[in-house]
């Protein structure tokens, strides 16, 4: 009995370990990570930079939690190679460890743009707690955030709260491009602009300038002086270990897994940012890289390791963040992602702005800015693949109120008045 070996201590790997422990109290579980800390949340790192959350508030598990559950956590250790034939993992310091089943939860790494000046002091990524500490302690007055994903925008806001003059540079024509269409994105740009953040879209970063430290960046349109650059230009799945040991890699670049989160090699599972999964809404292969999907995948792996077959129903892309007191949320398919088949219905009521994407009368996606009391109902409608005529029937004569969540019927009843 050599037990279960989990590589990676993110939410996916840790959930897999703790789920397995709940179901099986005997199996030996070992987690290996190259980080210093037990599980912490990376989604609150921008809030850590602006001092809204302390370091203790980031920690989700303590070393005692692992101890009490009988899970061995090996920190600051790197796995250099895995031999799946003899079921052995080799560490970079020469040690090795054999396993019965292996879980690859290696996560993702930030994309290093091949630019001049990326190595300069003052250029940061934001993926780990160490990165956040480095950004928080780096003295600066002007900053440029490259890329405008959720983390990019939150980092820009945090730096602004610290009194830094911030510019966001985005390559595409809109901010938050994976979550928002052009119109809602422009709406959000205005909110950020009013708060004093300069938002530049359709601009490409060319070089980072400076001799000893960063003094500015050049885009294809202008020069921006700054002393801090945060590169948030996207994440890539960390699949080098999986590739070397012979796992099949999918067309999106993530580890290919079946619905039980099994890779192409026997007794090797994978979960989290490094895998390619089916998107629940579009039914295509996707790299989700979202917290809730990683957690659900880890849970599925835990069950399957314990011998209880459980399927992963598919990734859901749900983005939700708070910008200066305004709630921005997005889920399902964007209109720009429907290849011209979809159309958008706009609803503006008071401080609530919603853009609903429809394909042939079927609700497939929604984006909201401001206080949106219908968001939960829209998400539920998308999951139920609800069409508008069908909704209208349900609303006009509810089959049995106890069959559907009452909040859903209530919100949909209000919403249906605005739909075509």
């Amino acid at each position, binding site marked *: 009995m050599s037990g279960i070996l989990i590589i990676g201590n993110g939410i996916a790997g840790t959930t897999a370990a703790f789920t397995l422990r709940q179901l099986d109290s005997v199996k030996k579980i070992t987690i290996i990570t190259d980080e210093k800390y037990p599980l912490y949340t990376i989604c609150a790192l921008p809030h850590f930079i602006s001092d809204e959350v302390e370091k203790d508030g980031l920690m989700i598990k303590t070393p005692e939690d692992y101890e009490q559950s009988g899970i061995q956590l090996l920190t600051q250790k790197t796995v250099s190679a895995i031999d799946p034939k003899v079921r052995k993992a080799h560490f970079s310091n020469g040690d090795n460890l054999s396993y019965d089943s292996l879980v690859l939860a290696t996560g993702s790494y930030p994309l290093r743009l091949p630019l001049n000046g990326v190595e300069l002091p003052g250029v940061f990524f934001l993926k780990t707690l160490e990165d956040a500490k480095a950004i928080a302690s780096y003295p600066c007055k002007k900053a440029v955030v490259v890329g405008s994903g959720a983390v990019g925008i939150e980092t820009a806001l945090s730096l602004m709260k610290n009194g830094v003059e911030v510019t966001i540079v985005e390559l595409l024509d809109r901010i938050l491009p994976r979550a928002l269409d052009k119109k809602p994105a422009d709406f959000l740009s205005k909110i950020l602009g009013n708060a004093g953040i300069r938002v530049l879209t359709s601009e490409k970063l060319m070089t980072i300038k400076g001799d000893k430290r960063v003094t500015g960046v050049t885009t294809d349109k202008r020069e921006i002086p700054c002393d801090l650059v945060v590169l948030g230009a996207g994440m890539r799945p960390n699949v080098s270990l999986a590739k070397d040991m012979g796992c099949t890699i999918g067309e999106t670049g993530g580890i290919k897994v079946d619905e039980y989160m099994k890779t192409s090699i026997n007794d090797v599972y994978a979960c989290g940012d490094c895998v390619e999964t089916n998107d629940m809404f579009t039914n295509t292969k996707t790299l989700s890289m979202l917290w809730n999907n990683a957690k659900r995948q880890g849970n599925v792996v835990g069950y399957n390791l314990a011998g209880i077959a459980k399927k992963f129903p598919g990734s859901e892309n749900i983005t939700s963040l*708070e910008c200066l007191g305004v709630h921005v949320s997005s889920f399902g398919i964007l209109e720009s992602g429907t290849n011209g088949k979809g159309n958008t219905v706009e609803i503006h009521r008071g401080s609530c702005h919603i853009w609903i994407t429809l394909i042939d009368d079927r609700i497939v996606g929604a984006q909201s800015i401001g206080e949106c009391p219908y968001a939960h109902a829209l998400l539920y409608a998308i999951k139920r693949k609800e069409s508008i005529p069908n909704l209208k029937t349900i609303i006009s004569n509810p089959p049995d109120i106890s069959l559907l969540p009452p909040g859903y019927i209530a919100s949909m009843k209000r919403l249906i008045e605005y739909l075509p």
Partner: protein
Amino acid sequence: MSCLKSVPPFQKWDKMNKVIVIDASKCTGCRLCELVCSVMHNGTSNPYRSRIKIKKFEKEGIFLPTVCQHCDSPPCIDACPTGTRFKDATTGRTLMDPDRCIVCQTCTVVCPFGGVTLDPVEKNIISCDLCGGDPVCVKFCETGALKFMEKQKLPQDKRLASASLLVRKRNAGV
């Protein structure tokens, strides 16, 4: 989780896994539950800050109370990126640690019941905590639309309700 702080107090619990069960057909829409909920938790009578919400449709005469159902596998816990929301092991309640919350409001989006909401005054996330084992909304509900019962008894209760509905329909000759 040992690193969690400021968990709501929990004293008057007698049985595990009790939840608030809603019988929407008995609700008259008086919204007393909303008032007492906000008084209990905030000391002000402000229905906007209530954790239970009544959706009213005056024309149709439909009143739908919505509140956290303390699900067995809650989507809000899966979706929470900071480990704020958690399941209380002894009582089965879905609770949260406000110190960890970054108010991203993902929980309000993923809850199919609309049971998790944003407090419009303090701008923090609120959801039903069953008042530490003795929910005031249930105590004040005059029509019996809200009941506080064990999860295990739920199917039995539903079976009884639908059976009695059948009997009533037969007696009425429908």
